[in-house]
């Protein structure tokens, strides 16, 4: 039957009511985990403990954004600062799959620590269909290990519950609408758990993440402005990637040898096939000017014009 969000909400809450113990839920502020938190909160009430991990890979203003969303929902969350541990576990790691797996493992370690504290038995996650499909298993090839699936360690003490694992983004959004999940349009885009760590190509350092964070803030700000001024529709997902390639530039008559930023922006229904967005050149130009002027270490900005397939949305 054509997808019916209300029916799904009812069934899902009934299922979640069967959990016989305390559950923690991993929230990121994105629509998937927020929808799960609302469903689980209706089913479990005080037996549910939402946890938000500050990995150090978050976007500018993301902690405040998450706090705001959950305050509006009337659900209290625990914020765990763990950036030191996350940066430490990625030291020397350059392989994207290893990165995602280390991050997934570190998330679980943080959750297990909190679960022990709270005497929790379950870990609820906002895993959706593309996460487990792309993570592969058996005869399905691994395209990328999503931190919440392929990144999970083989040995763990918590029972994982995934209420929306059969759904796609557009279906989750339909549920979010029914549940009146507040959405700030400027933040309405997927927020992968590994965050900026997979938008810094190569080894992840605090310095590179800080640079990548600023570039992302500029992309978000400029695209949102262009949308507000009616220059374009807001793309489904848009961000900046700090590449490993350094290139030659000239800044004020002086030779520069700086970093390169790639801009990625895509249109999609379900994230399984994706087209790059046709952003107006004037908008791209403003982004490029701001990035190269506000971030002196960057002297080149590229725009990614590849669909998925053959590319994927994120670079890693």
């Amino acid at each position: 039957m054509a997808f019916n969000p209300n029916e799904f909400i009812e069934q899902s809450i009934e299922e979640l009511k069967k959990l016989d113990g305390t559950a923690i839920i991993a929230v990121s502020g994105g629509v998937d985990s927020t929808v799960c938190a609302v469903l689980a909160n209706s089913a479990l009430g005080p037996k549910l403990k939402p946890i938000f991990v500050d990995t150090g890979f978050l976007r500018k203003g993301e902690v405040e954004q998450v706090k705001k969303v959950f305050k509006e929902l009337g659900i209290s969350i625990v914020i765990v600062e763990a950036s030191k541990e996350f940066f430490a576990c990625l030291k020397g790691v350059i392989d994207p799959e290893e990165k995602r797996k280390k991050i997934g493992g570190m998330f679980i370690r943080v959750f297990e620590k909190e679960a022990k504290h709270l005497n929790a038995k379950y870990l609820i996650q906002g895993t959706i269909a593309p996460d487990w499909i792309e993570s592969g298993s058996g005869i399905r090839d691994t395209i990328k290990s999503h931190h919440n699936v392929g990144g999970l360690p083989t040995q763990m003490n918590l029972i994982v519950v995934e209420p929306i694992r059969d759904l796609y983004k557009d279906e989750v959004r339909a549920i979010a609408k029914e549940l009146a999940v507040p959405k700030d349009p400027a933040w309405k885009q997927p927020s992968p758990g590994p965050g900026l760590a997979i938008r810094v190509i190569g080894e992840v350092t605090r310095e590179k993440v800080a640079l990548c964070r600023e570039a992302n803030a500029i992309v978000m700000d400029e695209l949102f402005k262009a949308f507000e001024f009616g220059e374009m529709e807001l793309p489904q997902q848009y961000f900046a990637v700090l590449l490993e390639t350094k290139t030659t530039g000239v800044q004020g008559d002086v030779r520069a040898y700086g970093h390169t930023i790639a801009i990625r922006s895509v249109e999609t229904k379900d994230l399984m096939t994706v087209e790059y967005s046709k952003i107006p050149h004037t908008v791209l130009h403003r982004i490029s000017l701001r990035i190269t002027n506000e971030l002196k270490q960057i002297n080149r900005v590229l725009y990614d014009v590849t669909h998925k397939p053959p590319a994927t949305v994120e670079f890693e």
Partner: protein
Amino acid sequence: MKVFVVDLGSQWGHLIYRRLRDLDVETKMVPADSPLSDVETVDGLVFSGGALRVGKGETEMAGNCGLFLDSAVERGTPVLGVCAGQQFIALRFGGEVRPAKVPEYGNVELVVDYANDLFQGLPEKFTVFASHNDEVVKAPGFKTLAHSKDVAIHAFKHESKAIYGTLFHPEVAHTQYGTEVYENFLRVCKR
């Protein structure tokens, strides 16, 4: 009506399940190595794509699909193979599958050669999404339904049985008229 998706490991197999479910069909994803008894009572079967390289003779991942296909033919149950699923069908019927001269990844213009039940009511040309490494080069007993600039046999139908195949992926959002292709297939299953 009951139409199952046989999972050959495609990234998009679950999307086929979603399309069928959205079209009010009783459906389920079935692993390719399931016993034949799991798929014997259906009104139709869809073989998903997968990472198997049929063009290099790698058909191990197709599990029991050969048995499923033979049994469906015997019972007159319609089958649609997508991508590697199409290639597997061709091979099973004595055809030839090779690494594609031009593998297509992304938008492809499909030209319909024969507007039979699968492409009924659709334009002569439309845009589809493909992602393949191999292609069917010979399919004895099959009629070509559509081609692209680089691939001669993009879609086919058996001359006397309800066995269909498309190299492109009708289940993805970026294929035009994808839902209509499944609707047309379901019409065949209903007969």
